[in-house]
């Protein structure tokens, strides 16, 4: 009964307000675009210098000068605007984006985000725009499976992986539950085939049950 990636994307899309300016991170978060209601007026930002990004380009639409942050060809919507990298990151860092959606290795109960490095000693580090997005957007949504391959929870009391940003995540969308990180603690918003008790046991966090459970 756990959710597919597409179902998770649909749930994230549901929580994005009409007319919001949104950055969808590389990978799984790009799926969210498919579930934005036509006419929602949501405007997509890509950190390599564009507002008003459209769907992936196919066939003749492919233009090597028009790509998203994952370097894949995309299209342009009416009302788009281009700007350079310093302006694009000023927009992010200045708190003008309403929402960004990112993947994660770990999220802590305090909303700390770890999504750029596993800290493995031989890994080649790469951070891209993740740290700028983490501290920049008004709301940072994380989309991830709740459990790693070894069964351990990726929502954790404290991150053990190197941080991307501190106390920046507001919502965590997983395949088995959605969490809200709030001043009073981590609240279970919704569950998909898992009990509150199991979530509390596996995350090791004193989760606040959903009032609608």
């Amino acid at each position: 009964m756990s959710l597919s990636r597409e179902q998770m994307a649909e749930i994230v899309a549901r929580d994005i307000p009409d007319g919001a300016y949104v950055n969808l991170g590389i990978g799984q978060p790009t799926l969210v675009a498919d579930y934005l209601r036509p006419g929602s007026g949501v405007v997509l930002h890509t950190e390599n210098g564009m507002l008003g990004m459209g769907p992936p380009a196919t066939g003749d639409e492919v233009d090597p000068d028009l790509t998203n942050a994952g370097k894949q060809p995309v299209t342009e919507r009416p009302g788009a605007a281009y700007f350079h990298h310093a302006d694009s990151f000023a927009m992010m860092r200045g708190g003008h984006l309403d929402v960004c959606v990112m993947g994660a290795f770990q999220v802590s109960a305090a909303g700390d985000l770890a999504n750029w490095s596993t800290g493995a000693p031989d890994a080649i580090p790469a951070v891209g725009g993740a740290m700028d997005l983490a501290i920049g957007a008004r709301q940072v949504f994380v989309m991830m499976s709740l459990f790693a391959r070894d069964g351990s929870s990726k929502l954790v009391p404290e991150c053990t992986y190197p941080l991307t940003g501190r106390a920046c995540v507001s919502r965590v969308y997983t395949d088995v539950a959605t969490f809200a990180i709030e001043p009073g603690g981590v609240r279970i918003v919704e569950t998909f085939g898992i009990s509150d008790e199991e979530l509390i046991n596996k995350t090791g966090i004193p989760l606040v049950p959903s009032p609608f459970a």
Partner: protein
Amino acid sequence: MTASIMSAADAVAAVRDGDTVLVGGFGMAGMPVDLIDALIEYGATGLTIVSNNAGNGDTGLAALLAAGRVRKVVCSFPRQADSWVFDRLYRDGRIELELVPQGNLAERMRAAGAGIGAFFSPTGVGTPLAEGKESRVIDGREYVLEYPIRGDVALIRAHVADRTGNLVYRKTARNFGPVMATAATVTIAQVSRIVEPGELDPEAVVTPAIYVDRLVLP
């Protein structure tokens, strides 16, 4: 959110008593005259005005000052041949002035819009305008630490907007508009014309719609 098209009167109702209001323009070029007139009419008071100048003649900013609505002016060049309204208020001690070099004024608003906490500027070092400010020598050159200037509301004038709020300007009337648009919680742009999304060249948009909340036609 997509910009709303409003009357000047409705738009300036975003201003509250005690707010900091960024006002575009360099002299009359880029001055949002209709928005200032609406603000005078509206009556918010105790304002801090951030603008390059402090009003000319008896209209616009000068009229706002004359109406007693302004507590403080942050600007680079208050004294002009026809700045008698400001001059009188200042000499009478009825208005506060923070004098900021023009480039620091622009950069401090840019910092506010860009999420920069503070920056070391070479402008003003060794002058009375740097007195009391933190300074530091970096790579053999002295700098003064300058902090962001944020606005509650920005009143700017652009040339053409599209319906979502993308803006283009005209010639040197561009001046402070684009940077003020980034630095305020609510940005109100007075424009000459509003077109459909897609009618402005996306390569030539100067202020992306993300920075614009309200559009006002003449």
